[in-house]
């Protein structure tokens, strides 16, 4: 079979399809989005009738995947690292219920926060839940490991956490495919109480889980992805986790035989392999993208049995993504560098597209809010967060999906009036609706503006669950129809929009304003697609 040129994300997606996937569940989030997008576009997925619709958020995705697993079929769920916080309740408990059909949870971490609010390390979630974690080193391994992930999930009857980072997710390389596996047939769990986590059942299953977790360390398939490369001499031994191994090899290349190396691809670690490495060296350098997790384990509370180098002693920077230069310096090797960036080069932050409705909304809001004073606009995560940058400087918060609504409620409780929340349509259906119910129940004096561009813009324009539903959702939750307004954020409506916003800001109760104008990117893409469609039918 010809090799395919695939992003890490796409390699994972293709592997899942080839490994007999029946259902893919996800909510968009950089750098994980392309996994679902690939499966949605895949002919193979279509002809195999693989379920592949976006979910409302990561928790609903995780639960739907668990349901598919319950029914005996293989399911995968993908999210960005912070998405796992949203899905955490379902995820942690799915380790206690265990699975039936294979269940793989892909968490895409974003060290250096290229497109994220933090750089949390999902490997901790694996340890927290007591499940196997796999961390591929490259695109081919990502493809191959997915087969093992499903098999291990069914063998241990546990979800498997598949951890990648931005660099692997969004880097392309050639991938060789394997023979396709058939999908599982529908089959219910042998034990009808397996998924019933009443305390009496949960206690038993949790105790069993703690035992299984220890056996994972020496499982030949799981541990087979951890390689001890014995080299000449003692000196500094190296533990390199996931893609850190590539940066190591980039630097030592043909001299790798001089070093003792443990290349880690799965967790929990095999203690004997770590002991073997430590026994061969005077000190151990730990290279891991994300938090110093293995480093902390190795040091232990007393930090005295092994001399450990890594992020905690400054050998490697405490935060941020690894790269070849950082690893060179950690190894004490000379690294090259080209010329400095000339001082005339300016920062070029992201900005609103020309013709973006969010921008026109903020111009109107800025003028209305000028009277009330600064510090009153709570916002959320999406393209509209760019309202925090000049020339608008309007946004005072961006914390986690949905927080705009509930932070405004809390601030209003404290006496802040007017208080405004600005949220995107997709973010609203992800996690804003429950907060709105809180606001309705106490008629909180806030103005919620849903800036509805009818797409999930920031992540590249995926379908939004909110489209055509916002009025009925808001009314259904109990918003007063007299204070549910719709505006069209266009320059020509500027004055009218200002007066609608101004009037609702004065209202001493809950108001919701839907500011609706289609995303310019989505609109032009749809137009092109339509034209292409016409062209085709014209032929």
């Amino acid at each position, binding site marked *: 079979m010809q090799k395919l040129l695939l992003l890490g994300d796409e390699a994972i997606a293709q592997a899942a399809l080839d490994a007999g996937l029946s259902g893919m569940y996800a909510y968009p989030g950089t750098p994980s989005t392309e996994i679902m997008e690939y499966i949605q576009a895949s002919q193979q997925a279509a002809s195999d009738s693989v379920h592949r619709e976006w979910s409302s958020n990561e928790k609903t995705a995780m639960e739907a995947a668990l349901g598919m697993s319950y029914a005996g079929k293989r399911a995968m769920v993908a999210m960005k690292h912070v998405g796992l916080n949203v899905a955490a309740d379902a995820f942690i408990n799915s380790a206690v219920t265990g699975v039936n059909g294979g269940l793989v949870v892909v968490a895409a971490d974003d060290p250096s926060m290229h497109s994220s609010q933090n750089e949390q390390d999902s490997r901790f979630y694996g340890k927290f839940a007591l499940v196997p974690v796999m961390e591929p080193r490259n695109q081919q391994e990502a493809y191959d490991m997915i087969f093992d992930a499903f098999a291990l999930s069914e063998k241990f009857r546990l979800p498997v956490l598949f951890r990648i980072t931005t660099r692997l997710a969004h880097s392309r390389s050639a991938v060789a495919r394997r023979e396709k596996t058939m999908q599982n047939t529908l089959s219910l769990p042998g034990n009808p109480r397996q998924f019933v986590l009443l305390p009496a059942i949960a206690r038993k299953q949790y105790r069993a889980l703690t035992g299984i977790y220890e056996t994972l360390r020496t499982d030949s398939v799981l541990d087979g992805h951890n390689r001890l490369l014995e080299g000449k001499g003692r000196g500094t031994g190296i533990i390199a986790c996931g893609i850190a191994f590539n*940066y190591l090899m980039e630097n030592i290349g043909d001299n790798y035989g001089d070093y003792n190396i443990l290349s880690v691809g799965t967790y929990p670690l095999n203690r004997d392999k770590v002991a073997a490495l430590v026994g061969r060296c005077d000190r151990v350098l730990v290279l891991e993208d994300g938090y110093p997790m293995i480093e902390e384990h190795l040091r232990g509370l007393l930090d005295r049995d092994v001399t450990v180098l890594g992020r905690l002693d400054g050998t490697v920077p405490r935060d941020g993504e690894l790269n070849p230069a950082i690893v060179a310096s950690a190894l004490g090797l000379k690294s090259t560098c080209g010329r400095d960036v000339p001082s005339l080069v300016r920062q070029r932050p992201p900005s609103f597209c020309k013709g973006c409705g969010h921008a026109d909304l903020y111009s109107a809001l800025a003028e209305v809010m000028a009277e009330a004073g600064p510090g009153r606009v709570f916002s959320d995560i999406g393209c509209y967060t760019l309202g925090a940058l000049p020339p608008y400087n309007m946004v005072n918060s961006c914390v986690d999906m949905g927080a705009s609504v509930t932070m405004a409620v809390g601030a209003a409780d404290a006496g802040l009036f007017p208080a405004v929340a600005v949220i995107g349509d997709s973010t609203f259906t992800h996690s804003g609706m429950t907060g709105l119910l809180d606001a309705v129940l106490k008629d909180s004096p806030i103005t919620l503006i849903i800036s509805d561009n009818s797409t999930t813009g920031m992540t590249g324009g995926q379908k939004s669950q909110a489209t055509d539903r916002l009025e009925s959702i808001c009314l259904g939750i109990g918003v007063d129809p007299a204070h549910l307004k719709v505006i069209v954020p266009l320059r020509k409506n500027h004055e009218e929009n200002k007066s609608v916003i101004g009037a609702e800001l004065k209202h001493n109760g809950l108001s919701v304003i839907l500011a609706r104008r289609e995303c310019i990117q989505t609109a032009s893409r749809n137009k092109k697609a339509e034209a292409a469609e016409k062209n085709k039918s014209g032929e």
Partner: protein
Amino acid sequence: MAGVGGQGILSIAATIGLAAVEQNLFLKQAEVHGMSQRGGDVQSHLRLSDREIWSDLIPHGGADLIISVEPMEALRYLPWLSSGGWIVTSSVPYVNIPDYPEAGKVLAELDRAGNTIVLDADGIARDLGSARSGNMVILGAASSFISMPFTSLENAVRKMFSRKGEEVVAVNLKALHAGRDATGR
């Protein structure tokens, strides 16, 4: 490879990628998605080799070539350029920030940076009647620094654009040629 989000540097990368597959070369190409695609600076690291490539990222001082569709963006990646490396860039500034430096000063910096080819890719593309093929002009201009036969790039362009019809293929091939001819190499 450098540019501004929305300028389409990834189509240059994808074309080289297709050619590399045809040539049976190892390839790694790290790209930036997400936040910065909204008019921010974007970059892609592309590595080609006849043996296995380890890092997805090019080490500092390890790039043989900077291909840029925007002059100031080319300068942003000088720390990655090797001594003796080349810069091939469009001369046309993309001004979406209030403090964009004087265009003349940017070009002077590029001159100082060493081996630099600066060309008005958009102008050349416009003259060909295809204002949107500036990317392929740049790729053509860079082609002599990419150790692959020119024909493999031509084949890749055909594959890239075949879905859009013969006309689009022809225009992009013309742009590729015009870029190569403009450098006289």
